[in-house]
C-alpha cells in the first residue's frame, strides 16, 4: 500500500509538469501581456506612469526575458510556494485567493451536501421503482435540471427572490455587511442570499448524480445475491441498503476526488451572474485581463488539487472495496 502511494506520488510529478507547461503556454499565447495594456491604460488616463515600479515588476517577473526562461522562474517560485503577484489587484496571488476562499468553500460545501441529500433518496427511489411514474417524473425533472442553462436560472431566481422576499440583488450578503466583521446579522444575510447559488449550482450536479446512482444501483439489484437476500426474507431495507447500495457506491467514492478542486473553484459563470465574492469570477477575470500569474497559479493550484483528489479516491476505493487491488497488474 505504502509503496503504491509513493509510486503514485512520483507519477504525479510528470503529470503536474506537463500541466504547468500547458497552463503557461495557454497564458502566453494571447498577443501582448498585462504590462503593455496596463501602461497604455495609465497613459490614456493621463496619469504618470510609475516607471520605477513597472521596471521593478518587469525585472521581478522577468518580462524582459525569453518565455521559456520565465516559465522556469515561475515554476521555481511555485515549488517554493510563491504563487506570484497579481498585476491587476497589486497584491500577492496567495493573499488575493485566500481572502475569497472562505466564502467559496462555504458555498461549495453547502452545494455538495445539498446535492447528496437530494440525489441519494431520489436515485434510490428511481432504481427501486424502475419504470414507474415516479421514476419517469423524477428522471424528467433531473434532465430538466441539466438542460436549463444555469446562468439563466440564476438570473430568474435572483429576480424572483427580490420580488418575493425582497432579497437584495446579487452578492453573498446585503450591501451594508460588506467589509464588516462577522456577526449574527451578517451570517443571517449570507444564509438568505446563499440558497440561490446553492440551488442553481447544485441542480445540474444533482441531476447527473441521480442518474448515476440509479444506473449503478439497478446493475447491483439485478445480481443474484440481491435476489437471494430478498428471497430468504431479509428485511427489505437491509436487503437494499446494506448490500446492493453499498457496492453500487464505487462510482461515488471514485468521484470524491473531483470534489476537492470543485470546492475551491466554485461554479464560475453562475458566480459571475450573481456577482458572488468567490474565486470563480476572480479566475475568469484574470484570464480575460491576462493577469497571468493570478490565472496561472490558480489553475495550477486547481490541477494539484485534482491530482491529489484522484489519489485520495483511489486509496479510498481500495480500502472500501476489497475486490480492487492496487499492487496487482491491472492491465497488461
Amino acid at each position, binding site marked *: 500500500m505504502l509503496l503504491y502511494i509513493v509510486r503514485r506520488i512520483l507519477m504525479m510529478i*510528470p*503529470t503536474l509538469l*506537463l*500541466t504547468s507547461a*500547458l*497552463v503557461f503556454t*495557454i*497564458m502566453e*499565447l*494571447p*498577443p501582448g501581456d498585462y504590462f503593455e495594456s496596463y501602461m497604455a491604460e495609465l497613459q490614456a488616463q493621463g496619469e504618470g506612469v510609475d516607471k520605477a515600479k513597472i521596471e521593478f515588476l518587469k525585472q521581478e517577473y522577468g518580462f524582459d526575458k525569453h518565455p521559456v526562461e520565465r516559465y522556469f522562474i515561475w515554476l521555481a517560485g511555485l515549488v517554493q510556494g510563491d504563487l506570484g503577484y497579481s498585476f491587476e489587484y497589486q497584491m500577492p496571488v496567495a493573499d488575493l485567493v485566500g481572502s475569497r476562499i472562505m466564502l467559496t468553500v462555504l458555498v461549495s460545501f453547502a452545494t455538495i451536501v445539498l446535492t447528496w441529500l437530494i440525489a441519494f433518496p431520489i436515485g434510490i427511489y428511481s432504481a427501486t421503482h424502475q419504470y414507474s411514474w415516479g421514476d419517469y417524473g423524477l428522471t424528467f425533472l433531473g*434532465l*430538466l435540471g*441539466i*438542460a*436549463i*442553462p444555469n*446562468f*439563466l436560472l440564476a*438570473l*430568474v431566481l*435572483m*429576480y424572483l427572490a*427580490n420580488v418575493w422576499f425582497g432579497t437584495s*440583488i*446579487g452578492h453573498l450578503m446585503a450591501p451594508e455587511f460588506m467589509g464588516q466583521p462577522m456577526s449574527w446579522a451578517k451570517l443571517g444575510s449570507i444564509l438568505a442570499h446563499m440558497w440561490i447559488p446553492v440551488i442553481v449550482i447544485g441542480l445540474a450536479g444533482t441531476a447527473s448524480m441521480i442518474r448515476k446512482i440509479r444506473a449503478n444501483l439497478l446493475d447491483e439489484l439485478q445480481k443474484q445475491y440481491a435476489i437471494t437476500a430478498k428471497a430468504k426474507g431479509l428485511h427489505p431495507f437491509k436487503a437494499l441498503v446494506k448490500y446492493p447500495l453499498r457496492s453500487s457506491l464505487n462510482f461515488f467514492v471514485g468521484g470524491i476526488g473531483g470534489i476537492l*478542486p470543485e470546492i475551491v*473553484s466554485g461554479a*464560475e*459563470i453562475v458566480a*459571475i*451572474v450573481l456577482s458572488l465574492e468567490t474565486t470563480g469570477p476572480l*479566475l*475568469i477575470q484574470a*484570464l*480575460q485581463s*491576462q493577469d497571468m500569474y493570478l*490565472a496561472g497559479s490558480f*489553475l495550477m493550484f*486547481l*490541477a494539484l488539487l*485534482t*491530482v491529489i483528489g*484522484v489519489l485520495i479516491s483511489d486509496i479510498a476505493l481500495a480500502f472500501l472495496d476489497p475486490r480492487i487491488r492496487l499492487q496487482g497488474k491491472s*492491465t*497488461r
Partner: protein
Amino acid sequence: MTAPPLPPPGAPLPHYVSDRPFDPRSIERLSPAQERVYLASQWRLMWWKFKRHRLAVASGLFLAVLYASILVSELLAPYNYQTRHIDHIYAPPQAIHLFHEGRFVGPFVYGQTYTLNMSNLKREYSPDPAAVHPIRFFCRGDGYTFWGLVESDVHLFCPAKDGTLFLLGTDRLGRDVLSRIIYGARISLTIGILGVAISFVLGLVFGGLAGYYGGFVDLVIQRIIEVLQSLPSIPLWLALAAIMPVTWSPMIVYFAITVILGLIDWTGLARAVRSKLLSLREEDYVLAAQLMGANAPRIVGRHLVPGFMSHLIASATLAIPSMILGETALSFLGLGLRPPVTSWGVLLTEAQNINIVALYPWLLLPAIPVILVVLAFNFLGDGLRDAADPYK
C-alpha cells in the same frame, strides 16, 4: 392430452410410448417469429429495441424536424434576422387571435400603439383593438439571399401589409426575436454536431492507439488525458477562446469554437475506447486476424471498432447537449460567437442582466429551444444507449 390413470400403489408402471411421429429437431426448430429475431442483423435488433423507447423515437423525430428546418431558415422566419424596426424597440410579443368582435377572420394580430411613459421613460406598448392585421401566408417580405446564392423574398408567413408580426417580441434594436431564434438554430445545432465529430475522431484515434498498443504509448496518452482533465473546462475554454485574434471573421471564430469544444471533450471518449479495446483485444478473433497478417489499423478499424461502435454513437449523442450548453456559456461570457453570427447563446447574451428579466422577459425565450434540444438529445441518447447492446 389426458394422462393415463396412475396404477395402484406398488404396481409396476406401464410402459408408455407416444405414438406421435418423432422429430429429433423439434426443440431446435424456431417458430417464424423466433426465426425473425434470431436471424436479424445486429442493427435491425437495435432498431427494434430502440423503437420500444417511445420518448427516444419522439425526440429523434423532433430533432430531425429541427435539423431539416435549418435548411430553410430563411423561408420559415417572418423577418430577416437583421432587419431593425426602429419604431418597435423592445416590443412585447403579439398574441395570435382568430376572432375579432365575435367574427371569424382567421389568424391575425392586433396592432400595437406605442407611448413613452414620461415619468420613467419606459416604452409602453398596448394592443390597438381597432387595427386588425391578418397574417399572410406564402407572401413576400424581407429580402434575403438563400444560402448565400439565390436572392429571394418569399416567406412561409409574414405580417399584414403595413402591420407588424412580433410573435415573440423584439430586442433592443427592434429585431424580431422569433426570426432570430429560427436563424440561430443554424449555428447552435451544427456547433454541437461538428464539435462532437472532432472529439469523436480524436477520441477514436488516441483511445485506439492507447488501447491497442498499450505500454509506453498508453502511458503517454493516459498522462495527456489526465492533464487535460485536471484543468477545469471553463477556464480552458476561456483561455483558448482568448487566443483567437480579434481580427478573425465571425465565420472563422465559429469554426475555431467548434474545434475548441471538440479538443476539450475528447478525453472521456478516448478513455471509453481504450478500456473497451483493452478487453476486446484478448479475443480469439483478434489473434486470428494477427496470425493472418492483418496490420494494426486494420484490426482496430475492421474488427475491433465495429464491436463497440454503437456504444460510441450513444455516448457521442449524449455529448452533444454539453457542447450546445458550452457554446451558450462561452457566448454568454462574450468569448464565443460574435454578432452578426447569431446563435441561441448570442441571443441569450442580450438577457444578461436582471433589468431584462424584470422589464423584457421575452428576451429569455431563446432559452426554450436550448432546453428542448438538450432534453431531446438526452432522451435520444438514452434510447440509443439502451439499444446499443441488443443481445442483453
